[in-house]
């Protein structure tokens, strides 16, 4: 990105920025100040930028959604339906602001879990060594904006050799319209630990707003994290998200991310295997209709030998919706014996639906196994006929097959109530496809 004039959107934000924060620590203020300095040199990306070739966010520039103020009138009753029954611990953020009242922390003896203002008092040193270290903003204006404007952060530290059985729920609720919120998460898995967490973005009603989120995940030796990411924002919302994952020796990161909401969503996932024998499994499903656009950019960077990565990304696209998948896999010169596979499969449910999928392999080591493949297609006529010949109506046959296509990804979610909810979402969204 070059140093051309900043747009109104960034101008507005720059003017509104101040250090009048309640965070006393200077390292954090310094980080925020350098983030805002960086924003000052930038403009919003356009379709002219290679990384934004298919995703037009020019409409964002015309919005002047200010940072969301805290909204306190939400009651536990209002969000009961969002509760995950398997989760003992949940952190709830409303428009980016932590709500102690809506959150439930039960496991504080085995698990360090809380929000930023608390942790700045109790875990200052560990925060300073991780916060902002993975999601670098020197090449990413949205990560910079998040860093400059964040109001709080969801924090999980899983202590050494501790396995947490129940999933932790990080719930980000959009309650107000015409505001921007800046959710932030930091998950630290100490060596030999194991945790499952659900990062979920929802809206209480159909409204226009912007979510700009950043998640950082750091796993120490032999740590294991299962990351379930659910994006079901309002279909008028913009969702711009960055997630950065750092894996050292023998650690294992598994993620399943589902995007079904937002007018325009962009999810950047960067996984760095910075040490030997790290492993990641990355599954994604975009399920969109009407005029939605869902853009997923992933980068899996094999830096050291003996790493394994497996990725499967699927899109189910109906009406005039548009799905984008760009999956970069880097195998650096020292990363011998890397084993990597990637598959992108796309189902178009209408003649006007669109998919742009692009695998991007950059392999600089010679002794590696890398397999990748991409398909774009419609429901198979022979499969439909088979089901019809068993008495299913054409509509039932189509919706079952579409469901099955998505179920392959949904079935990898290790939280059964969430799986059931999502299966229902797929069934509802695919009831009336047109091809």
């Amino acid at each position: 990105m070059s140093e051309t004039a900043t747009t109104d959107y960034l101008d507005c934000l720059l003017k509104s920025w101040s250090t009048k924060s309640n965070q006393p620590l200077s390292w954090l203020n310094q980080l925020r100040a350098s983030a805002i300095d960086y924003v000052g040199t930038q403009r919003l990306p356009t379709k002219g930028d290679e990384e934004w070739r298919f995703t037009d966010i020019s409409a964002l520039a015309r919005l002047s959604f200010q940072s969301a103020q805290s909204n306190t009138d939400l009651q536990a009753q209002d969000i009961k339906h969002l509760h995950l029954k398997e989760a003992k611990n949940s952190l709830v953020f409303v428009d980016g602001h932590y709500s102690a009242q809506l959150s439930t922390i039960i496991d504080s003896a085995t698990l360090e879990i809380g929000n930023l203002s608390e942790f700045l008092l109790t875990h200052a040193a560990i925060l300073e060594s991780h916060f902002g270290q993975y999601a670098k903003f020197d090449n990413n204006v949205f990560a910079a904006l998040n860093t400059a404007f964040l109001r709080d952060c969801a924090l999980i530290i899983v202590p050494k050799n501790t396995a947490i059985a129940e999933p932790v729920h990080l719930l980000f609720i959009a309650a107000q319209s015409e505001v921007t919120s800046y959710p932030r998460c930091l998950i630290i898995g100490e060596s030999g630990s194991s945790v499952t967490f659900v990062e979920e973005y929802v809206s209480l009603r159909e409204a226009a707003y912007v979510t700009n989120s950043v998640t950082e995940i750091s796993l120490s030796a032999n740590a294991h994290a299962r990351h379930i990411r659910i994006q079901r924002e309002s279909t008028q919302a913009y969702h711009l998200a960055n997630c950065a994952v750092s894996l050292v020796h023998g650690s294992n990161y598994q993620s399943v991310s589902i995007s079904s909401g937002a007018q325009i969503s962009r999810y950047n996932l960067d996984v760095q295997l910075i040490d030997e024998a790290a492993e990641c499994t990355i599954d994604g499903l975009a399920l969109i209709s009407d005029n939605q656009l869902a853009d997923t950019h992933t980068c899996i960077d094999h830096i050291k030998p003996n790493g394994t990565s497996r990725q499967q990304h699927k899109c189910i696209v109906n009406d005039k919706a548009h799905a984008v998948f760009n999956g970069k896999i880097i195998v650096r010169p020292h990363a011998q014996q890397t084993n990597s596979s990637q598959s992108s499969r796309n189902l178009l449910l209408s003649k006007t639906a669109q998919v742009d999928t692009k695998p991007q392999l950059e392999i600089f080591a010679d002794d590696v196994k890398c397999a990748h493949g991409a398909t774009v297609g419609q429901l198979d006529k022979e499969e439909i006929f088979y089901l019809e010949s068993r008495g299913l109506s054409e509509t039932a046959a189509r919706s079952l097959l579409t469901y099955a296509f998505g179920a392959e990804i949904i079935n990898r979610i290790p939280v059964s109530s969430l799986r059931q909810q999502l299966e229902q979402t797929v069934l509802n969204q695919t009831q009336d496809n047109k091809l």
Partner: protein
Amino acid sequence: MIVKNSKTLLSVEGLRASINGTEILKGIDLTVKSGEIHAIMGLNGSGKSTLAKVLAGHSAYEITGGTVRFEDKDLLELAPEDRARAGLFLAFQYPIEIPGVANTQFLRLAYNTIQAQRGKDELDPLEFDDFVREKMKLLDMNPDFLDRSVNEGFSGGEKKRNEILQMALLEPKLSILDEMDSGLDIDALKTVANGVNQIANKDNATILVTHYQRLLDYVVPDFVHIIQSGSIVMTGGKELALELETRGYDWVTANKQSIAGAVA
């Protein structure tokens, strides 16, 4: 079994069908009455599967002539699912794999759809589980196949058993079994044939499409039809299959007029 005065289930007259402008069925005549078992034999590419799929309502084929009645209905007017609901069943030569759909979920959905159509009670997952396990015993099938995706990774023989399992569940009036014997070892063939025999009764009928006389030792047909280039050129009793086994299709070509004439 041939039952005196039994009613006609299927009546095909002069059926012609094409795919992509190529005529495959060139005037098929076939009458099947309840209680009967028919065998259809013929060389590769002669149109056996085409006939089966046209009867089941595959949309890729264009019907260019003839009529088909199924009981009191004009079969060609019905959508494929309505043919199934009316009691027609096709066991596919190449059953389709459906990753992501558990076999038990699929079987229950098909079963309940047909039950609802017949005005009978649907079964919930637990009730269905008991019911389907009983039927699987009939075919000596491992219950593990319930939890796997429909036909995904099933061996050729396992897929065929899964087809016959569906037949056992849906209790059709007319079953068309397209090469159910291909890919079955001899023990499996006996088991599956035994299943078919148990399902057959005086009120339903079966059409077996096969290349091999061997199947007909276990499921004994009342009629054997030989199809060549899209039409039935010879019809006889179960001996015709034996005759074909020893004399081959050249004999059929040389004799089709005279024998067909003799049968008629």
